[in-house]
């Protein structure tokens, strides 16, 4: 049957984090922050490349980035980086089968052991750390 008729949810389904609990939100944030960081990395490489054109060019670039908008972006990048790193470590350990619970006879009403409180806690901690880092970053950037 043609894939057109396959009733797949498509990108919207993949990108909708509002169902299936916090783990799905974490998945979504990990993707989004990964992409955001990649975009920033590319930008950052271009940004820093100005240095080869000497001080004038560099200062011009600094001027350009050291605006409120630039600071907001940088704050976001800090948050993304912290979340992606912290959650990435959780995900990596999980992928290795660590902290995903132990198989055993499930008991009705079934609660999946892999969606355990440790995993949830780590997700919230990652979000929390990201928020803290952003606050700190913002205070450094916007403070004088």
């Amino acid at each position, binding site marked *: 049957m043609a894939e057109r008729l396959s009733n797949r949810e498509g990108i919207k389904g993949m990108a909708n984090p509002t169902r299936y609990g916090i783990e799905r939100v974490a998945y979504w944030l990990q993707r989004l922050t990964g992409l955001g960081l990649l975009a920033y990395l590319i930008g950052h490489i271009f940004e820093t490349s100005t240095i080869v054109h000497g001080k004038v060019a*560099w200062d011009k670039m600094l001027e350009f980035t050291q605006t409120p908008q630039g600071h907001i972006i940088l704050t976001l990048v800090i948050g993304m980086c912290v979340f992606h790193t912290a959650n990435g470590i959780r995900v990596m350990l999980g992928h290795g089968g660590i902290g995903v619970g132990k198989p055993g006879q499930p008991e009705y009403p079934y609660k999946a052991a892999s969606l355990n409180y440790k995993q949830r806690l780590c997700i919230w901690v990652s979000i929390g750390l990201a928020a803290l880092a952003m606050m700190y970053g913002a205070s450094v950037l916007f403070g004088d």
Partner: protein
Amino acid sequence: MRESIIMKIHYGTALGAVVLVAVHILMRMTQNFDQSLQYQNVIANYHFLPYALMLEAILILLSVHGFNGLRVILLELKQGSSYEKIVNYGSIASMAILIAYGSRTILMAGMGIS
């Protein structure tokens, strides 16, 4: 390449980056943030060989990790053998370009245009 090797590289680059990025960012914190970005200071950093090497490492790790991440997302979005080939080679090419471009900066700045 087997997918498991690629993904081990993905995780490996991420782990390596954790340490190095932390150092990179902490460097910004050793001084006042604004000062750390002053031209002289930045150039001085580039002249300091271990630091330049570290920047190069970060550059490679993150390009590999980031573009492989992008590759993964793209592979999942759409399938088909020619599409997948384009994605696979495209991401390798992008990594190479970004690394080359970034290395140029490090090299030139490090070589002492001052």
